[in-house]
């Protein structure tokens, strides 16, 4: 019995953690720049693939640290070259642009690394279960949750206590005023986008250790991220955090009792939120309307 409870809690945490990390990056970009980054799943995949490419030279730990920053760098370039041009335009253009980008990135991944699945080697220490009784909790899973907690805490601390974080938060509410206060909004947006991609890249490295690499790996995580954002409340990072945890827990619990419905429950929650509380759990009325 205790095993089952423990299992549910940890499983929910793990699945939720994943959704949270991915959704936070997406939410960050959405809030400040009003851009739905369809290519977010592809940045995730890129993070995993770059870690794969770097592991021979830097080892797993090196790859884990370096890969997300590389992804952030690529995100920065993408933002500067392409996304920047369509700010302020009709949202249809940003959707189409990132949609097209997603196609290109997926095809590039397939072209460079092949259509076959690739394994990402984990250090042997991590791949062990923590005890024979708790065989379903490997050190890697604990490690993943720990990394996510650190990353999320770091993000919130950054948003709360640094100047740049403050500007981003202010920019989410009223970008015009922030600009007129002398902040370089262009740089802010670029930086923000890069941070979002950093989170995606980190998710990718963690995911790759769990499920392996393939060009489509980001696709299945994109929709739950959307839903996490809508459920939590568009425009609020805390909301996204709760949204992600909620749907993660729900999915984990359902898997125990009725496995084929574990995806359905996420959509059920979405519909419930849209029907009962459309602004989301923590969202404010009027956000992004």
């Amino acid at each position, binding site marked *: 019995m205790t095993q089952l409870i423990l299992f549910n809690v940890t499983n929910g945490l793990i699945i939720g953690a994943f959704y949270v990390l991915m959704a936070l990056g997406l939410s960050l970009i959405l809030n400040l720049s009003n*851009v739905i980054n369809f290519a977010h799943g592809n940045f995730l995949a890129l993070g995993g693939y770059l870690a794969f490419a770097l592991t021979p030279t830097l080892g797993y730990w090196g790859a884990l640290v370096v890969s997300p920053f590389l992804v952030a760098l690529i995100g920065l370039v993408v933002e500067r070259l392409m996304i920047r041009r369509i700010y302020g335009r009709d949202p249809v253009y940003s*959707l189409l642009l990132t949609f097209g980008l997603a196609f*290109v990135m997926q095809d590039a991944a397939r072209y460079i690394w092949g259509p076959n699945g690739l394994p990402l080697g984990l250090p042997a220490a991590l791949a062990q279960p923590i005890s024979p009784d708790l065989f379903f909790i490997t050190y890697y899973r604990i490690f993943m949750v720990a990394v996510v907690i650190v990353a999320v805490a770091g993000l919130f601390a950054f948003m709360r206590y640094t100047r740049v974080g403050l500007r981003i938060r202010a920019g989410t509410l009223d970008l015009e005023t922030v600009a007129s206060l002398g902040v370089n909004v262009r740089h802010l947006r670029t930086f923000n986008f890069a941070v979002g991609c950093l989170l995606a890249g980190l998710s990718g490295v963690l995911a790759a250790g769990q499920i392996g690499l393939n060009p489509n790996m980001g696709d299945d995580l994109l929709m739950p991220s*959307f839903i996490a954002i*809508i459920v939590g409340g568009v425009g609020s990072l805390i909301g996204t955090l709760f949204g992600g945890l909620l749907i993660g827990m729900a999915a984990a619990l359902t898997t125990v009792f009725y496995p084929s419905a574990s995806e359905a429950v996420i*959509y059920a929650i979405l519909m419930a939120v849209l029907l009962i509380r459309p602004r989301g759990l923590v969202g404010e009325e009027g956000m992004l*309307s």
Partner: protein
Amino acid sequence: MTMAIASLGGRLPITAGRRELTLVLIWAVLLSVPFWLPLLGGYTALAGRVLVFGLAAMGLNMLLGFTGVLSFGHAAYFGLGAYGAGLTLRYLVHSTPLAMLAGTLLGGLAGTLFGLLIVRRRGVYFAMCTIAFGQLWYYLAYSWNSFTGGFDGLRDFQRQPIGFGPLTLHIEDGGTTFYFFLLAIFAVAAALMGVLLRSPFGRTLLAIRENERRARFLGIPVERHIWLSFSISCFFTALAGTLYALLNNFADPLTLHYSLSGYFVVMTVMGGMRTFWGPLLGAAVFVAMQDYISSMTVNWMSFVGAIFMLVVLFFPRGLLGAMRRRLKS
């Protein structure tokens, strides 16, 4: 009141004389497809696909181009139309017209009801909800194995010949008969859409697109109009979906997926969002291009994605939009 709305809504799509000429030209081209398309290395089924996607995109355009509201989940209604038609043919009755009716109603009603939920949202949030809603249906379609055939799709149904009294339309063999059937349905739908858009209702939509706040100040019930526009566009797209099911004798979950929604948006934008025929032109270019490129290279996704990006960055007004601007200047 009407004058004010008219001045808000702006110009007629095309000046009078030119409009007639354009119509004649377009229909001449569409009617003669079986003759000139094979000469260009095409095939009639390709034209059928263009018509179906063109109709779907035109349905979307009513919302996107004429009302100024973005839905990135319109494939949901397209797919519901396809499944509705397929399920009717498979489980209920072997009748093509009834199947088309059932599919159109299914997709249209789903859109109508969903529109009620989100009509107060705008911009990116609205778009996100439409995407998520679409994926919900996608998920349902591929999980409900016993009913919809699940991941493998709905099969074992076929388009049935249509009887008008003593005359029977044998559309069950593909080819030119079926193409003309598609063209006929397309014509009726396009005419209906044209009438709607030229009516005061259509003008009001334009007003809302141009300046929502001012329209509201004028006393126009903005939410209701947006909801109606959303609803009607879903019906047209669902109709296109039923035709798609008839074209393939198959309905599969990918007709509900957001990537197809994306294709519809691209077709609309590429052809010219604010024009009536733009989406059809966009559909023709896109379908032909995808067909051609995917035969040439496995990396067609890069090319298609690059074209999306180029359209957004350099041709935001689309083909017809750019042409129209040049004609004016």
